[in-house]
Structures are given as C-alpha cells and as structure tokens.
C-alpha cells in the first residue's frame, strides 16, 4: 500500500523548497519508484543536475548527488560516466537548464549515446528565476519577459533528442504518475542515452500569469491534452492539434553505447 519514499530521501530534508503544487515533487516520487524497481545501489548511482528548481531534486535523494552549474549537467555526467562506467548516471533538470543554456551538452550526449538517463522536468518556464520564458514556453503565452505574449516558437524536446541521436526517448506528464516511473525504469534499463520528458507545472510563475485558476486546472489540462503515441498514430492530424504525445516515442537498440566504444579504443591501445 503506502509507498516508502522516505528510505530514498536524505533524513531531515523534507519538506522540500518547492512551492505548493509544484509538479517537480510528483516527478521525484516517480523517479524514486523507478530507482527502486531497478534496484539501484545508491552508492553506485549518480544523480546529476544543473541549476533551477528542478535541479534541486538530487539534493533530497540519498545517493551520489552532483548539483552542477546551470546547463552543464549532461557534461558533468559524461565525465562521471566515462571515468567510472560502473556508475548508473541519471540527470534531472528543468527545460531551461536542459535545452536553453544546456542545449549543446544535451544534444552531444544524445549524439554519443552514452549510457545515461536524462529526466527533463519540463514546466515550460524558468521557474527559479521568477518566470521568464523558456525554449518550451508556448508561443503567445505570458511570461515575465514576454509581457506582450511569447514570440518564440518552441522546442519539442523529445523531437530534439531524437534528432540528435538519443536511442530511447519517451514523454509523459505529472498527471500520469504511474507512467513516470514506468518510462524512467525503461530508460534506466536501456543501454545508451535515454531521455524522458515529464511535462509538469509551475503554478507560481507560469500558472498565475496564464490564467490558470489553480494548479489543479494545470494538472487537468495536462491530463486532457495527453494522447498515447500509439493511439495518436491512428488519429487524423486535426485531432492532434495542441495534443501531447506520450509514451515511448523512439527506441533504437542498434546504435552502440559510447563507453563500450571507448573500451574498444583501450583494447586497441593496449593490444598495440
């Protein structure tokens, strides 16, 4: 019945700093369930993040946790994994951290197909700094730096991950808690770069400005717009307007994993 999250959380760290209703907490629970399902040895698990509200997540977790600089999680994580391939490496961070300032490290980690799992908590805003628009803020939406509505087109983060070479890409939302751990579990078990995009909410800096009466409305919207990718395949385009495809979006088991490629280099170097 009641799930024991506490054993994965550092004593005395709760309540966390996130605002009432912040979706990051829901995602964190899903991550814990996935780590338990995979029976990860926490002393051999590195949780790496950048800077942002989402990036505060590793600090609560009882593991090897690395809270890096804004946007650099994937690059730090690459160093950790290359230097010690025994470690299970999981990156967690926000949309801004991951694909704004962190975009280059993100796409190159995807290209290398290094064995890590990158969980993007996409609340389509820069929460921690007070609600400036991010590369995933819907066009037209209000943010503290788009007083007249956001002129920027958005990144489809999952599409970007696929386009740059990740071999497992999946998406879900904070309103689908059971799918969060299901997908993260698959991501951890996948050998190679896995990207799991979790659409969640920032009631404090996004919700208010965009006429959501409450966080509950934001959650309901997520529920309403989610369409499983399989089901979507059968739907006509117009039916998919403004919808979010969820589930496993891409899975490739052919492309070699980076650390294994490098083991070949070592073999050659030592063979020679």
């Amino acid at each position: 019945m009641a799930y024991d999250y506490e054993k994965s959380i550092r004593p005395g760290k709760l309540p966390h700093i996130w605002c009432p209703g912040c979706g990051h907490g829901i995602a964190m629970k899903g991550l814990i369930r996935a780590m338990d399902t995979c029976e990860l040895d926490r002393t051999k698990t590195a949780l790496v993040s950048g800077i942002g509200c989402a990036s505060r997540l590793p600090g609560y977790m009882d593991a090897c946790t690395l809270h890096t600089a804004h946007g650099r999680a994937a690059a730090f994580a690459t160093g950790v994994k290359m230097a010690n391939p025994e470690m299970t490496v999981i990156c967690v961070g926000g949309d801004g951290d991951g694909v704004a300032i962190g975009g280059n490290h993100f796409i190159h980690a995807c290209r290398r197909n290094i064995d890590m799992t990158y969980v993007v908590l996409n609340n389509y805003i820069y929460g921690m700094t007070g609600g400036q628009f991010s590369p995933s803020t819907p066009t037209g939406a209000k943010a503290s730096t788009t007083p007249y509505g956001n002129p920027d087109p958005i990144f489809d983060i999952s599409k970007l991950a696929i386009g740059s070479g990740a071999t497992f890409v999946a998406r879900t939302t904070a309103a689908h808690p059971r799918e969060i751990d299901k997908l993260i579990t698959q991501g951890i078990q996948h050998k190679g770069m896995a990207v799991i995009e979790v659409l969640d909410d920032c009631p404090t800096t996004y919700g208010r400005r965009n006429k959501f009466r409450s966080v509950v409305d934001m959650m309901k919207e997520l529920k309403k717009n989610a369409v499983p990718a399989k089901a979507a395949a059968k739907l006509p385009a117009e039916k998919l307007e403004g919808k979010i495809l969820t589930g496993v979006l891409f899975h490739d088991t052919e492309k070699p994993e980076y650390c294994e490629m490098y083991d070949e280099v070592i073999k050659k170097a030592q063979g020679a």
Partner: protein
Amino acid sequence: MAKKVALLQGNEACAMGAVYAGAKFFGGYPITPSTEVAEVLSIELPKVGGKFIQMEDEIGAMAAVIGASLTGAKSITATSGPGVSLKQELIGYACIAETPCVIINVMRGGPSTGMPTGPGQSDVMQAMWGTHGDHAAIALVPNSCQEIFEETVRAFNLAEKYRMPVQVLFDEIVGHMRERIVFPEPGEIEVIDREAPTDGPDSYKPYDATKGQIPPLASFGSGYKFHVTGLNKADDGFPTTKASLVEAEERRQVAKIKDNVDDILKNEEYMTEDAEVIIWAYGSTSRSARYAVNELREQGIKAGLFRPLTIWPFPEKRTAELAKQCKAIVVAEMNLGQMVYEVDRVSRGECVVVHEGRVDGEPVNPGQIIGKVKEVL
C-alpha cells in the same frame, strides 16, 4: 641503466608529465597552440586504462573534468586563452566544490581569437581574477620542456593536496619548441594522491573543517553518498544561506592557500646576491632574461634574475626583499603589463619598478631587456 631521454615539444612533455603524475582522464576541446597536449594524451591515456574524451566545447570539457575527478580519477584539460575564458564559470565551480584538476593554458597572442600561432603571456592576471566571486588560485609557469614535465606533475600534486584547480601556463614558444627530456624513473618525483576520508560513509562530510583545513574528498562510486554543489554550502555539502556558515567556508577556502604559500611557492634566482637591478621574468621570457643577465654581467652591470615558477599565490615576500635590496626591478613579460602590478604593489616604492613587454607575436628578446636595464640605471 641509462634513463630514457627524448627530444620533445613542451606540449608533448606536458602530456607525458600528466601520465607520470597518474592522470586517468582528459576532457578537452582542441585549440592552437595547445593541441599536441591532447593529441599525445589521446595516444597515451588508453594505454594505461585512462580515458580521453573530446567534448563539444571548452565548457563541456571543464565540466567533464570535474565530474571525472569526483569519481577519483586525476583529471586534466588543456586549452588556450579563448578556451580559458570560456571555462571561467566552471573554474569557480571547481574552487568552491574543492575538486582537484589541472588546467593547461598554452598562451597565445592577443585578446579574443587574437594571434593563435603567436606566443603571449597575457593571461597571467586572468589566472587569478578570471572567475567571478572570491576564490584562491594556484598557477605555475615553467620555462623549459623538462620543467613543463616536472611542473605538470607538481600541478597534479598541488591540485590533489589542496583540493582545487591548478593552472599551468606556458607560452607558445616553450609549448612548441623541442628540447631533450630526461624521463624520471617511477618514484623519482613524488606523486601525491588526494587524502582518503577516515570517516565511514555515514559520518562523512565533504567539507568538515574539523578534519583540517583541507578536508578529505571521497570518490563517487566508492561507497560514499554525498552532495556536491556550486552554491555556498555548509560543511555537509548542502546549500545554506546561513551567514556564519557561508563566511566560514569561503574564508577557509582562501586561507588554505594563504596559510600554505611556502609549500606552494617555488622560484629560481640567478646572480641576485649582489644585484643592483633585478629582472623579474617567467616562462620563455625568463630565458631571454637569463641571457641578458649574462651579457650585462660581462659588461660589468650587476644584474640578476628572479624567476617565479609559481605566480599564484604571488611570491610577495621574496619580491619585497629584493625590492629593498636593489635599485630597480625590470618586469619583463610578453604583454602590456600584468604581473608588474603585483611587483609594483609589494615593492612599496622601495625601488623603481618598470615594465618591458611586447605583444606583436615576437618573443621579448635579450636585447630589449638589456636596453631597458641600461635605461633605468
């Protein structure tokens, strides 16, 4: 049995020094005139089971180096001015997170892209002040291929001992010239590894000052679970804004260098005992200076050379003593005036302090130093 000798470029010697020091990880991004450091390590590291990775940019390289170091691997990157500028934020991260690593800066000419294939010594002040916020710095400036090998080893030793990034700066001239290197036998030069924690995983705190000014650093994957952050933090590694904790941590991180200058400083003096004019120079310029000293002495002028191998922390005490002893100090650098500000400061008006430099891609030659010496006397 005769020692192994070879004719190596400074950059190649640097790479071999890193291997000697036990480097197991290189993360970099190519840039002239430092590329040979990476190229040699891409050959050598996998031979010893180490990892070489070329990252997407210099920021990623610095990030990977810090990440790798946290797993216990001795880590290094090599770059040049533009790359060092890009790394500044993460150099600060390595400082506050107290993560050992070595950063090689083969100095080229000019600001910005400048003169990629020309030599310069214009990044020496940046080595101290480049990153925002208060922090300590260690920077070494070898002047020959043999010394590059040895100072690279010393850089790793200091990084591991003091838990911080250490920069080795040498100009393109020493980086690209070839000289005979005598390879030390294993064990011939001391190799220092970071101190392992004595506490068990449950009581371990990564910044526990009660364990000494430089608390031991555990490795990810070794059974310890701890938190590392770039925010101001308490001794347990978790972010805090509690004034007293923040202040204590920041002061300790600066004090650990201030209190150990004598262990970190290293310099060479040539004919300074009776010198009336001191040439203060480092890197390739110090070779011109030594040449100049010999010439001047032949001409009966009492010149001497002070050559720091460590420029940060600054060799304050000895420079001040020399200022008291001599009439003038000529600071010769391949720039428009950088370390001369520090020399000037600590000289407190005790002697004339002048600068002799150039920034046209040509070395500061003995002739111009001799000229300047005669001018000030």
